[in-house]
């Protein structure tokens, strides 16, 4: 057996895994998206491309814009919160680095749904935070945190922050600290050194973090479902609603496919820029 054939054989388990658990289910979703339902909600396969036309009904425009807006706000907040954390761990973590990264990851071992429910308890009108707020005399009747767009964005930031911190940490940790010293030796101010040295050196981490946060955030439904109100309906809620309440699996599947295509565009832009960056780095 040639070495090449052997290498291909190594791919077999992963290939089988992907075929069975990704390609086949995706194929079923595509097939359902072109179908219709019988009177008691069984999806019936068929040829109904109009399901896709319905996706672009102007009715859903506010839902799509809201989802993208919430996801972008989440990305910006994750970057603002995550960058200093990643920077600190990478530059000053020393022998605690592994522990600190483990602490970042630890909450993510608990199911996202459960963690979001915890926020419901913490932020409710008569919950922990409002108890402190009223006891401290900051507000007589407490503050309404829950069921607002801010609560939804907060839930998304909390849910996906680690996806920002980890790639940022990896990029910053790889960076040679001598570069920063060189910047200072050349009389760069702290800000100039950061902007001209650190930021470009770790930019691939920023890009990866932004994409990794944006993609799940834009399709999320749990945060809006549990922390949102009447005006926080996101595309994830719309898809969930089609699968559950409306029991219209074909339309839900069509929405899913269009959503995946939309996300794939962003993913491919990112992957191409990452590939170019790595070519330039090795050139």
């Amino acid at each position, binding site marked *: 057996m040639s070495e090449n054939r052997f290498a291909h054989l190594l791919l077999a388990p992963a290939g089988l895994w992907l075929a069975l658990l990704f390609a086949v289910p995706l194929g079923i979703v595509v097939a359902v998206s072109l179908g219709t*339902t*019988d*009177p*008691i*909600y*069984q*999806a019936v396969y068929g040829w109904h491309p109009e399901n896709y036309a319905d996706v672009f009904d102007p*009715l*859903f425009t*506010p*839902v799509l814009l809201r989802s993208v807006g919430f996801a972008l706000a989440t990305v910006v907040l994750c970057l603002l919160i995550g960058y200093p954390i990643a920077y600190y761990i990478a530059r000053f973590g020393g022998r605690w680095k592994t522990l600190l990264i483990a602490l970042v990851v630890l909450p993510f071992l608990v199911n996202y749904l459960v963690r979001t429910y915890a926020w419901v308890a913490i932020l*409710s*009108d*008569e*919950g922990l935070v409002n108890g402190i707020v009223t006891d401290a005399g900051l507000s007589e009747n407490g503050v*309404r945190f*829950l*069921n607002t767009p801010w609560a939804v964005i907060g839930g998304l930031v909390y849910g996906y922050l680690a996806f920002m911190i980890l790639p940022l940490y990896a990029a910053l940790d790889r960076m040679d600290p001598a570069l920063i010293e060189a910047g200072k030796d050349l009389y760069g101010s702290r800000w100039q050194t950061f902007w001209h040295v650190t930021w470009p050196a770790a930019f691939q981490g920023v890009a990866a973090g932004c994409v990794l946060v944006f993609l799940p955030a834009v399709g999320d439904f749990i945060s809006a479902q549990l922390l*949102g*109100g*009447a*005006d926080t*309906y996101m595309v994830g*809620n*719309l898809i969930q*609603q089609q*699968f*559950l*309440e*409306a*029991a*219209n*699996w074909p339309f839900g599947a069509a929405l899913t496919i269009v959503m995946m295509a939309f996300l794939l565009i962003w993913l491919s832009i990112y992957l191409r820029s990452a590939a170019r960056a790595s070519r330039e780095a090795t050139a």
Partner: protein
Amino acid sequence: MIEPKVDGDLYYFNYSQYINPGLVKEFEKKYDVRVIQSYFDAMEPMLAKLRAGNTYDVIFPTAEYVQRLIQQEQILRIPRDKLENLDNIYSYFDDPWYDPDSAHSVPYSLYITGIGYRADVIDNMTGSWNDLGNEEAAGRIYMLDDYQEALAAGNLLHGFDMNTVVESELEQTKEWLIGLKPLLRGYSVDTITNMSSGNAWIEHLWNGDIINIRYRVDDPDTIQFQKCSEGFPVGSDAFCIPVNAEHPGTALKFIDFMCDPKNAARNVNWNGYPMPNRGQDQTFADLAKDDPNIVVTIDDLEGGDQFANLPQEDRELWTNTFLEVKAS
């Protein structure tokens, strides 16, 4: 014909928190079976999961869905004469509108939809569905996240047939629902949590949840229920056995067990919804002694508005109308 004898573990599919868990444990012990519970929070996902090939031995559809399941030949006939405890069931259910001769279902619970409110902070309820837009409770009002219930409230308020499929009427109901949105805190079926946590002052809900909210708050008298003057949805749900059930014998045993008068009383005391079973009459009367509004009478069932089994295209019109409200 199926027989009431244990033929395996019971695969049970119901709303969550809708049956006394102590009775389920007792059933397991008595018949030496396990009850494997799954939950749904609305009829459509229940049917979609059932039709996607999952097998359950006992399901709990509402009346209009029982009719639809019979039409589509999805549930088994119940051998009524082989069950011991059906004599306790109200005679209204001998031949209900949705199931001739009760051949395919045994009634489980009765409900009325209305408005729950906090009497300690709200003093201007008017008895109308318009109270869902009470400015004094702005930001503390929840509507049921349920397309049937949301549209029914609007249709009744406007004096339309509750089950209307006239597009111009549904349009008016839709505009009313959209107009409420700035005052709403959200759409939710988690009514017990919303009210007992203090987040809701006005809550669109089902009568039985009132009892459970009272169980959870410091001062139960502050939790009141309003039956709206323009009319209100009233209905029932039922035990049914799907055609693909693998253990229909155990399912029959379970139905009979739940209809035992003593067990019915214990179940009602736990979940707060009246059962059409004479064994629970005194227990429910005690629960409702200060609040006749949560009682569901046979007059309510006969004269009130029950959800109709709408044809598929009309049902889509309803779900799409509510979707437009939520997406706007």
